[in-house]
């Protein structure tokens, strides 16, 4: 039984924390928050690339470090804790995972080294409007290698170089690689709940599109990519939840009311204990997801769903009760509570809302039961 990070993984995680403590402070996050022209922190993005994190899980033959997914999870946990304002998830959890899952040898050889080298930002475009995209309402369409349609919202769509797009071709749903600097692509940055992460509307009118994976497999591949991303996102959520509990504790210990620290009142203690319990349940479920992702276990779909549901719930609870613990100060722009409140929503929605994942989880239970 070894259900924890190894010593080497803990070392890597600790190094990541040290790097982010210096290079991703609240001031760095706020620079992106407060400047509408800024979509991400370009210096941090370069720094993260120089650390090798972008290629942590990319095989050495494609220019990566060839580490396991558990190492990537350790990095993700620290990025979530620091509320990092960079397109890491879009590029690494979505694009790189999609390429490694479904890419041809040529596609992998062409794009993975660029990701590992920090030369390319990715995006994953499925949604076309409010609600869930499905076979009945999917509008984006590819004819003769040219994509037409609108994708909204696309996280990091305004700064990405390469997008994976879900679209029909000859009536069959597929995934397609689209270079966003090419002709036939119009992009518009959108206002969102979390301005520290960038989101765009992308309109395609005859943009060159190359299929990624088999024709007809668009939705199955999307689900498979989401399973992988969900585990990695769960670690970002976990890092954020832990940070919220820490912030709430630190504030409560120093805040005095009615002649004593508010950390001594049971109303506060029980709130923080509830945060702790949810964070630990999320951690255990996330660890199982990391194991399943790392070894490519058959349990990945249910493990990913459980990790996503538990981490989404933990981060939402911790982020909102962190504001509450801070009282009036928590409601100000100046105090960092809202950064995590915002990020908890961004992370809970980006790979599909928790409700969708609960349904996927129950479908897996039904499948297991039928088997």
């Amino acid at each position: 039984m070894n259900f924890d990070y190894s010593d080497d993984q803990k070392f890597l995680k600790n190094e990541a924390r040290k790097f982010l403590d210096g290079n991703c402070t609240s001031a760095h996050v706020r620079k992106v928050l407060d400047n509408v022209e800024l979509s991400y922190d370009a210096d941090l993005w370069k720094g993260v690339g120089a650390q090798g994190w972008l290629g942590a899980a990319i095989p050495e033959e494609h220019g990566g470090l060839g580490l396991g997914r558990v190492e990537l999870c350790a990095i993700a946990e620290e990025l979530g804790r620091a509320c990092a304002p960079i397109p890491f998830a879009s590029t690494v959890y979505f694009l790189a995972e999609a390429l490694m899952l479904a890419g041809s040898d040529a596609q992998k050889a062409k794009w993975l080294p660029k990701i590992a080298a920090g030369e390319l930002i990715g995006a994953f475009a499925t949604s076309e409007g409010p609600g869930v995209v499905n076979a009945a309402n999917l509008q984006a369409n590819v004819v003769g290698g040219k994509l037409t349609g609108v994708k909204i919202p696309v996280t990091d769509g305004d700064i990405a170089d390469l997008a994976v797009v879900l679209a029909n071709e000859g009536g069959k749903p597929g995934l397609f690689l689209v270079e966003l600097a090419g002709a036939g692509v119009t992009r518009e940055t959108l206002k969102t709940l979390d301005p520290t992460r960038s989101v765009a509307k992308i309109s395609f009118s005859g943009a060159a599109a190359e299929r990624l994976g088999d024709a007809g497999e668009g939705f199955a591949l999307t689900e498979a990519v989401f399973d992988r991303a969900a585990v990695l996102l769960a670690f970002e959520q976990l890092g954020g939840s832990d940070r919220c509990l820490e912030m709430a504790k630190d504030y409560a210990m120093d805040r005095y009311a009615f002649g004593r620290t508010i950390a001594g009142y049971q109303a506060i203690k029980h709130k923080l204990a509830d945060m702790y319990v949810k964070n630990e349940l999320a951690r255990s479920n996330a660890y199982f997801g990391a194991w399943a992702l790392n070894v490519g276990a058959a349990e990945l779909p249910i493990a990913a769903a459980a990790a996503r549901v538990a981490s989404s719930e933990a981060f939402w609870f911790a982020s909102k009760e962190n504001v509450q613990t801070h009282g009036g100060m928590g409601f100000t722009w100046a105090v960092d509570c809202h950064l995590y409140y915002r990020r908890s929503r961004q992370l809970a929605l980006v790979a599909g809302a928790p409700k969708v994942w609960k349904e996927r989880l129950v479908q897996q239970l039904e499948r297991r039961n039928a088997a």
Partner: protein
Amino acid sequence: MDFNDSPEEAAFRIEVRTWLEANAPKKVDTKKMSEPEILKLAKAWQATKAAARFTCMTWPEALGGRGATPIQNVIYNQEESKFDVPRGFFDIGLGMCVPTVMAFANDETKQRFVAPAVRGEEIWCQLFSEPSAGSDVAGLRTRAVKDGDDWVINGQKVWTSGAHYCDFGILLVRTNPDVPKHKGLTMFWIDMKAPGVEVRPIHQMSGGSNFNEVYFTDLRINDSQRLGAVGDGWKVALVTLMNERLAVGGSTGPNYAEIMALARSTVTEDGNALANDAFREKLADWYVQAEGLKLTRFRTMTALSRGQTPGPESSIGKIISANQLQDLSNSAIELEDQFGIITDTAIAPMEAAFQQSLMWAPGLRIAGGTDEILKNIIAERVLGLPGDVRVDKDVAFKDMPTGR
């Protein structure tokens, strides 16, 4: 991360499994049996385990154990849980009471009591809680007054599991009411069959009687039955309670799999209950919680297996499991709609398992630390938040205000 045993652990697991296959008693239907009949089976199984040293495994060999590691203990329990053997009669005695005796009694007392307890011949109970001292157990009122070499005891204990079949108990009493409450306590061991001890079963809201009231009327015991110094009872009790978390196991009762089976066979206003969106969302939540707890135990095992002390993650279990049992049971009976009111095991789905757990769950949220006390423990010992303001710290026990 992996879930594999180390080679040594795997070898031990095989040894345990082989032994269990050869020695575990055949499954018997205990539903129609009386408690004394089940107890007889349990004592026989305990004797078999003791002879092979598969009980109290982490204790030294001289005391009947095998000097096993905590992880070996976990492996044994995992393997034994796959067999339908009688359980539950010895956990409190061997998990909490006898270790306290071992830590504080003289050699003669240890010689007399440890071995028979390990073999299951004598069972021990823990006499701490009182009607006026539950979460605040140090506020207990049972008095012991010195009389020559003896102590004379008067008072009442409550919530004593198994007192009606136990042979001995460890008893926490007040020996000095003139000092603040924690400082006036002393621990003794007593013979539960002695004159002056009266055991009365408590009729629980669930209908059953798993716990007792124990009354002491001029119970006379010798000073040699004292465990620890006079006035040191609280320190001794902390040793007992430290073992509690290890002795009290996970909860039993229906879980997500059972309610899923119920939903599959239940028709609601809009078709099969398992097709209902609201139900499916709850089912996912229960699964995530139950899996989270199971996986948290794996993290505890990892710490044990690395020779570390398990971290605070082990403290979250009962808060989650007890509340989930209550919530899930209620959802199940509401799923049954009007039929949910029926508790007749011959008629109600799953032999009324959900109705039974609905009535048992409130007790589970209270026993061994209420939800509220457990949250205080997490807040204070895990997160390091300050303790509550205390108005009873420097007040002599006799001067403390009391309610009913």
